[in-house]
């Protein structure tokens, strides 16, 4: 079965569920994806009536993490009389994880949302395809069989989906939203309970083996084009601070210029803040207007947290996130010791 039929099935199912939820008044509004106006994009949409259900779509270009719209809630999710509305969120695995993790940080209440679970096959790495096509305009993108077919004025190119998937999706083990046993009402559609996620992190092993100098060169080259537009931060469901550390100006901590040290520090500290919180949705890299790839860093964070604290983010709203928790027996091999 090809990807397009799979997606079509999911889409039909999704519309069915969405219609049911709205009809039974189980949710007031639903946030999902609709067809984008450009070939490589999809658009978030908020619907509140059954007629609009047909606008909902699902394909491999739905990369925005919709949990972003819940913290803080966009105005449409709050009613002037009723207060917070019940929101149905069209959730692939990482959107579900983001919602559950945000609940563990007390940023959202799970009884005010409904996770509409859909199984995700991964999203297309649009920057990589755009770069490989180069200076030609992409007019049409479709997924067929296991290929992404990109058409332009005088060219047509096929990209194997397995390879041109976003890097984080390639290693994703949580494709459906996690089922929370304590809140069975939370999920509709396809969700799954996860335990003992095994990951060997072989994808970043090669990079890890480099010398500090080589790593520095690669990372700084990647970051050298950063324009500090903060699209990565704004697209990240976990970046909800009212005042981000780079914006703090009493006192100013870090420079705001695009000089390498300042850019580097921004990305380093942002990574630090993502430890144990990143849900591997890859939105930060996919929204970057200049195509910076932050996936490697996110994978490394996942690895550290998994290996040190045996934690996978966004699986259980009742487990404390690792960075606010501790164990007496945490490993401390990195501490200086007398010989």
């Amino acid at each position, binding site marked *: 079965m090809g990807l397009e039929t799979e997606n079509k099935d999911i889409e039909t199912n999704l519309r069915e569920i969405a219609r049911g939820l709205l009809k039974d008044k189980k949710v007031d509004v639903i946030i999902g994806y609709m067809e984008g106006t450009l070939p490589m994009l999809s658009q978030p949409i908020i619907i509140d009536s059954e007629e609009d259900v047909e606008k909902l779509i699902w394909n491999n270009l739905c990369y925005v993490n919709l949990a972003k719209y819940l913290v803080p809630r966009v105005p449409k999710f709050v009613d002037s009389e009723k207060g917070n509305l019940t929101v149905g969120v069209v959730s692939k695995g990482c959107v579900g994880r983001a919602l559950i993790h945000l609940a563990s940080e007390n940023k959202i209440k799970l009884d005010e949302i409904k996770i509409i679970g859909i199984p995700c096959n991964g999203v297309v790495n649009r920057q990589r395809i755009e770069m490989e096509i180069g200076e030609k305009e992409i007019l049409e993108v479709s997924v067929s069989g296991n290929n992404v077919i990109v058409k332009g004025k005088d060219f047509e190119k096929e990209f194997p989906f397995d390879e041109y998937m976003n890097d984080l999706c390639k290693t994703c083990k949580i494709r459906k939203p996690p089922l929370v046993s304590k809140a069975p009402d939370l999920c509709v559609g396809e969700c799954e309970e996860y335990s003992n996620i095994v990951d060997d992190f072989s994808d970043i092993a090669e990079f890890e083996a480099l010398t500090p100098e080589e790593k*520095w060169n690669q990372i700084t080259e990647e970051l050298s084009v950063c324009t500090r537009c903060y699209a990565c931060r704004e697209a990240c469901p976990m970046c909800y601070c009212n005042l981000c550390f780079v914006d703090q100006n009493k006192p100013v901590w870090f420079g705001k210029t695009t000089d390498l040290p300042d850019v580097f520090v921004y990305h380093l500290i942002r990574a630090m803040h993502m430890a144990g919180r990143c849900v591997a949705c890859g939105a930060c890299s996919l929204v970057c207007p200049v195509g910076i790839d932050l996936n490697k860093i996110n994978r490394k964070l996942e690895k550290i947290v998994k290996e040190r604290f045996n934690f996978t983010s966004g699986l259980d709203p009742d487990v404390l996130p690792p960075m606010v928790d501790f164990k007496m027996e945490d490993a*401390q091999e990195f501490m200086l010791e007398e010989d």
Partner: protein
Amino acid sequence: MTEPIVETKQTENKEWEPKIIAFLCNWCSYAGADLAGVSRIQYPPNIRIVRVPCSGRINAYFIIKSLTDGWDGVLISGCHPGDCHYISGNLVARRRFAILKELLEFFGIEPGRVNFMWASAAEGERFAVLVRKATEIVKKLGPNTKFEKKW
């Protein structure tokens, strides 16, 4: 700018000595450093001490800011696990340090630039030994030039 930092960079011809900023917790390590002093235990003069209430107070900003400001190394010391004056400040900090240490390495900063240690108020000797060790590590790495801005 009205009160400029008077320290200037060392000239080339003398043997290069690293400058290390040390964040010491008030209750154990700072007292440990004090003990080393009053017991006349020698330790390298390369460290400049900043006293903080607890190792849990140390934000990753402090460490990275120190590196971007040109310090060659950063040393952080707190109470031994279980001895924290605030019960668990150092334990939470330990997780933070673990992540930061690995991340810095991943970003290509030499892992030896930032060192963490425990030293209690009674361990003047241990404090001196570990500072010596940290100084050696940083000295081997050479000056920290990665964050210099172009002028």
